[in-house]
């Protein structure tokens, strides 16, 4: 049985923890709104670009297709680009991402492919390094900026494309969280490089003129498409992080409240017990006289 003073100390410490989790929850809620707005604002560009890409890619095919679309011709070396958050306190978000990355890596290894990781964000490094100590390649640090924007996406994409051109890998997969709601963020695995050919070929109704040629335009648009994909992933990560953090902190605040209630009851009981004991002592003393 802890003493009254100890109980009081514990209640106070849980209360201050609750204050912190509550503050973090409110900050996350405010940031989530902003991140969602940013993700919303980025959508028109992405949809238009993929529409243009689809119409061009259906026209340019075969040997004329640029390397980013057609691939290197080999399928031996795979790069897994894992987008994690930089900060914790966001529940199971990062461990789910790592789990997805691990599953994909195991699948590729089982098929006899060579794999390597390229890590964006800090939180995936330690768990992946534990499982695949020799396979961690480069990475990109996004923790230096407050909110990663298009410049960071550009930096990552340029590095990846340079690696691709130098033949460091044949296929790159992008693993990032998709924001469904504040409660659900799903790890998503997509192929980043070579750019997957669009499934639906749009009907070319009008004769479109191209300046310069179709191939040249496509060649310029492909790196841009990769950048946009990465930018989208960064935006999704931002929204997911804030959403997950909000939910996790909400739970933590509620748990702290329950704990405080329990401790307060215990505190009151033991105080009452102490008073009763004292009274009994006094009465017994008085009776003895």
């Amino acid at each position: 049985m802890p003493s009254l003073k100890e109980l009081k100390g514990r209640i106070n410490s849980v209360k201050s923890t609750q204050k912190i989790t509550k503050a973090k929850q409110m900050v996350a809620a405010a940031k989530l709104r902003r991140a969602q707005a940013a993700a919303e604002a980025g959508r028109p560009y992405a949809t238009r670009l993929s529409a243009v890409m689809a119409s061009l890619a259906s026209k340019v095919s075969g040997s004329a297709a640029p390397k980013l679309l057609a691939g290197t011709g080999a399928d031996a070396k795979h790069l897994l680009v894992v987008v994690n958050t930089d900060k914790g306190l966001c529940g199971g978000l990062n461990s789910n991402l790592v789990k997805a990355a691990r599953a994909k890596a195991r699948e590729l290894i089982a098929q006899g492919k060579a794999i390597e990781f390229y890590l964006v964000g800090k939180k995936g490094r330690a768990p992946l390094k534990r499982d695949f100590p020799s396979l961690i390649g480069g990475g990109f640090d996004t923790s230096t900026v407050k909110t990663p924007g298009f410049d960071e996406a550009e930096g990552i994409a340029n590095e990846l494309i340079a690696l691709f051109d130098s033949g460091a890998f044949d296929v790159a997969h992008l693993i990032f969280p998709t924001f469904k709601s504040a409660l659900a963020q799903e790890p998503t695995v997509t192929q980043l490089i070579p750019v997957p050919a669009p499934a639906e070929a749009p009907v070319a109704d009008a004769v479109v003129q191209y300046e310069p040629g179709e191939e040249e335009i496509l060649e310029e648009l492909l790196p841009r498409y990769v950048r946009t994909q990465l930018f989208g992933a960064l935006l999704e990560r931002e929204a997911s992080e804030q959403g997950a953090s909000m939910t996790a902190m909400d739970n933590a605040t509620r748990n702290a409240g329950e704990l405080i209630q329990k401790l307060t009851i215990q505190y009151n009981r033991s105080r009452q017990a102490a008073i009763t004991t004292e009274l009994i002592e006094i009465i017994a003393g008085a009776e003895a006289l």
Partner: protein
Amino acid sequence: MPLHFELVTPAKLVRSEQVHMVVVPGTEGEFGVLEGHAPFMSTIRDGAVQIFAKDGAAPEIIQVRGGFAEVGEKGLTILAEHVEA
């Protein structure tokens, strides 16, 4: 008839409005787009896009980098990676 003009960056939709004419700095030379232009796609070199709100009015100039222009039935759409007003 006005031309529908949209300027889009990855971060946001910068412009969506009806204008008279837009002069775009294409890779192979500047071109002006009016209402009813034939379908056309071009890459853009880094430079100034001139927007004429009305016929004969002074142009509004927006600097774009890493751009791409598409003229379709719905008007002119410029996709640019960086925009400086």
